């Protein structure tokens, strides 16, 4: 049975506003575009959605990816695009999560398009071949004009904070005439979140250009690019290289051009025809066709087409030369279209395409290049040492090394964390790293000048930034006290990657509130405008002013005076942040005010009433004391790192708690009224704080291969979990194992259950190939051993 299909390329517009001479759609063997409609009709789009949906339902696919393509898909226009996206979402959405992408030449990108991308959560990839000289070689208008400046303007728009999350990456077709170093620098300057490099499409009938005397010039070009990438810290994921490295480790490839994974992609053309991958158009006229269309044929029927089926057979269906090659598992025979060698005795029917005939039973026309590239890259990987300091391109040019220190986790801290609680020093390292990140994020929020619409809010943010910069020099400890607050980090992330419908100006103006809070802690005089959000003017870690609605406007002036207990503003009331300051806590806020606290999945409660606050204070103190008595090691770590507890809205008879990655030091808990709170709360605090620690550890060290798509059945949840979810669960239940063990005979049965869960899942992770990295194995081994032990 054929593997199910989860990726679809939907041709929404058949024409293009550029006339690139290397385009396979118009300039290569296939000319079928001439007879197809320019624009996909609503009826075809709806039918395509129906076919995708029924296939996802039949094969229980949780996610499908639809890439809108052309020609140039933005030629469809915004109104038609909205209708198309609505049809896809309403057709597929009820069955599977739909991951929408679009591949554009970038010429037409404007704010309206980007707003539409944000609204529909659609990510855009842009084609660019390097710097202006490189790009102008092929990517030109029909009259020969350069397209470079317009594409770069589009990319500049995508890099803006409010649109950055819609920026999927850059696609570059390489040309030996271009200098790989210059191309790398030009592409890196566009800060793409992903990058891929394509070999120019070619076949044995039309082989690629090769300078005389050069055996594998494309490998040489790509290796120069590889070294640029490596020396630059590999800060941009490059699909061709990451696919090679992943396939070499036995993992999946992320591109059909490499690896032996079954083909997982179909194309739907503007006329509703099912087609094979577009690259086939380089082979011969009609090569991509299947003779099927969305009205008459299901996805399963298309998958049974011999040309699709043959591409799901792995190594076994490759040529004898390929099967005997030592790197076949990495290259997978190369792109299917590049294997084409015409046979004069083969008769083809142009409306049904290739049927996997002997014409494709050859190595790739790029065989020597692929082999040389793979061997060179893998040799480089084996010889590579981890960089220990960060370097900039300028440093490399001058031969100097950057001396800015980097956060590292000492080996003893790592080992301490694997045992469950971690010691105070380990938690301090994790907190330090998050503080460094928070400082950087806040600085970048302040530096993002573009896109303001409300000049009053912009002025408030600018005023706040001026104050915060001055305070960071004169009162660094007080500034860091505010920046270390979990929801300052969450706020900065939200500003830099805003969710759809965010009020970006209002969010960014919170910088003034951050500055005001630091000024308050520093005990200096200050007067500044702060944004009004709902009814409140927020000073994170300090409290909030209930604004005076009669004053109008989106900002309110507040004044801070040394020695005063609260900031003052005309005609307003004050709400203090609520702290537990005594032992065992260092300083813990019960966060029921911060406007960015609601990021843990479950809804946060509103401001607690005075009796509710007293109950939280009493019960949290008792819960913490219980941890001090039973598992003092965990209690010490908790006291060192826990800064905020967010009350969640209570749900009758349901225990709920959560932790967000962007809020280090915070846990969110729903309180169960009328129950023994110290027991409930101590368990939930312990459970969630394990997630808090592991979140940072996972950012410092790669514990598992990210390309591993395996999901594991776990005993604590019904749904299969990704590797990181399994690690989080084990780590949380390791702590609960220790707590139950310390509680003695009354908790013995639960102790045995939790311990068995840790044993079972650590064993499963360790036994499954290509899941854990070597450091991940150390971590999981450490947890397995720790489950047997008592902790102090």
């Amino acid at each position: 049975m054929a593997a199910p299909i989860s990726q679809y390329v939907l041709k929404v517009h058949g024409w293009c506003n550029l006339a690139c001479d290397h385009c396979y759609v118009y300039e290569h063997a296939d000319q079928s575009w001439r007879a197809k409609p320019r624009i996909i009709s609503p009826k075809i789009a709806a039918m395509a959605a129906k076919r995708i949906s029924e296939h996802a339902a039949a094969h229980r696919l949780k996610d499908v990816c639809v890439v809108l393509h052309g020609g140039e898909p933005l030629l469809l226009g915004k109104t038609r695009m909205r209708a198309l996206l609505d049809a896809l979402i309403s057709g597929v959405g009820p069955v599977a999560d739909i991951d929408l992408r679009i591949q554009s030449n970038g010429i037409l990108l404007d704010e309206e398009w980007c707003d539409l991308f944000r609204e529909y959560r659609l990510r855009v990839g842009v084609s660019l071949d390097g710097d202006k000289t490189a790009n102008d070689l092929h990517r030109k208008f029909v009259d020969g004009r350069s397209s470079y400046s317009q594409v770069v303007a589009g990319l500049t728009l995508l890099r803006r904070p409010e649109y950055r999350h819609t920026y999927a990456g850059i696609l570059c077709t390489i040309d030996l005439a271009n200098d790989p170093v210059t191309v790398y620098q030009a592409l890196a300057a566009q800060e793409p979140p992903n990058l891929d490099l394509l070999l120019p499409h070619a076949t044995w009938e039309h082989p690629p250009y090769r300078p005389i005397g050069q055996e594998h010039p494309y490998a040489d070009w790509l290796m120069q690019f590889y070294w640029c990438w490596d020396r630059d810290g590999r800060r941009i994921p490059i699909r061709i290289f990451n696919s090679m490295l992943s396939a070499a480790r036995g993992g999946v490839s992320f591109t059909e051009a490499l690896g032996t994974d079954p083909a997982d992609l179909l194309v739907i053309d503007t006329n509703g025809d099912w087609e094979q991958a577009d690259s086939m158009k380089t082979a011969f006229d009609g090569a991509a066709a299947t003779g099927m269309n969305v009205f008459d044929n299901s996805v399963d029927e298309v998958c049974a087409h011999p040309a699709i089926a043959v591409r799901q057979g792995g190594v076994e269906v490759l040529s004898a030369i390929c099967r005997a090659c030592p790197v076949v598992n990495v290259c997978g025979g190369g792109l299917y279209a590049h294997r084409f060698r015409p046979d004069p005795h083969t008769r083809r029917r142009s409306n049904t395409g290739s049927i996997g005939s002997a014409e494709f039973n050859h190595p790739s026309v790029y065989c020597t290049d692929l082999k040389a590239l793979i061997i060179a890259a893998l040799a480089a990987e084996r010889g590579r040492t981890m960089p220990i300091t960060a370097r900039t391109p300028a440093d490399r040019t001058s031969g100097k090394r950057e001396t800015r220190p980097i956060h590292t986790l000492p080996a003893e801290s790592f080992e301490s964390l694997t045992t469950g609680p971690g010691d105070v020093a380990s938690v301090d390292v994790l907190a330090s790293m998050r503080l460094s990140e928070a400082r950087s994020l806040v600085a970048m929020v302040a530096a993002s000048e573009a896109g303001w619409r409300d000049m009053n809010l912009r002025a408030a943010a600018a005023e706040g930034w001026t104050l915060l910069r001055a305070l960071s020099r004169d009162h660094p400890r007080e500034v860091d006290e505010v920046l270390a607050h979990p929801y300052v980090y969450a706020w900065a992330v939200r500003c830099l990657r805003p969710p759809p419908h965010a009020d970006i100006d209002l969010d960014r103006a919170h910088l003034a509130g951050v500055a005001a809070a630091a000024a308050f802690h520093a005990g200096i005089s200050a007067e500044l405008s702060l944004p009004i959000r709902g009814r409140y003017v927020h000073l994170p870690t300090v409290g909030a002013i209930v604004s005076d609605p009669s004053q109008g406007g989106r900002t309110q002036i507040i004044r801070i005076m040394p020695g005063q207990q609260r900031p003052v503003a005309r005609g307003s009331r004050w709400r203090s942040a609520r702290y537990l300051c005594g032992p065992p806590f260092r300083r813990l806020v019960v966060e029921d005010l911060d406007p960015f606290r609601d990021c843990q999945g479950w809804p946060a409660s509103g401001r607690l009433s005075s009796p509710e606050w007293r109950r939280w204070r009493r019960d949290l103190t008792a819960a913490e004391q219980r941890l001090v008595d039973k598992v003092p090691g965990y209690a010490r770590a908790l006291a060192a790192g826990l800064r905020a507890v967010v009350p969640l809205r209570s749900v009758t008879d349901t225990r709920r708690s959560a932790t967000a990655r962007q809020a280090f030091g915070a846990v969110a808990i729903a309180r169960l009224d009328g129950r023994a709170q110290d027991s409930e709360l101590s368990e939930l605090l312990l459970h969630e704080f394990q997630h808090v620690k592991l979140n940072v550890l996972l950012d410092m060290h790669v514990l598992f291969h990210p390309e591993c798509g395996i999901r594991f059945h776990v005993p604590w949840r019904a749904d299969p979990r990704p590797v990181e979810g399994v690690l989080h669960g084990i780590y949380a239940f390791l702590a609960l194992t220790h707590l139950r063990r310390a509680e003695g005979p009354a908790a013995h049965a639960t102790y045995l259950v939790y311990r068995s869960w840790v044993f079972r899942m650590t064993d499963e992770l360790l036994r499954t190939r290509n899941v854990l990295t070597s450091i991940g194995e150390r971590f999981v081994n450490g947890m397995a051993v720790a489950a047997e032990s008592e902790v102090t």
Partner: protein
Amino acid sequence: VDDVTSGVSRDETTAERSLDTRGVPLEELATDADVRRMVTRILDNMEEPSRVRVASFQSNV
């Protein structure tokens, strides 16, 4: 396929590259190219599909 969007891989070394910015004046961070790159990595990493954004727990009692 002309699509650069599928399959994001975190390189193992990226985890080793968290600059220690404590004590550095904030205005210096705002213009530092390395810091900008680190922030981009943090944000990209935050959206990395293989990572868990929110760890949540629920059970009926």
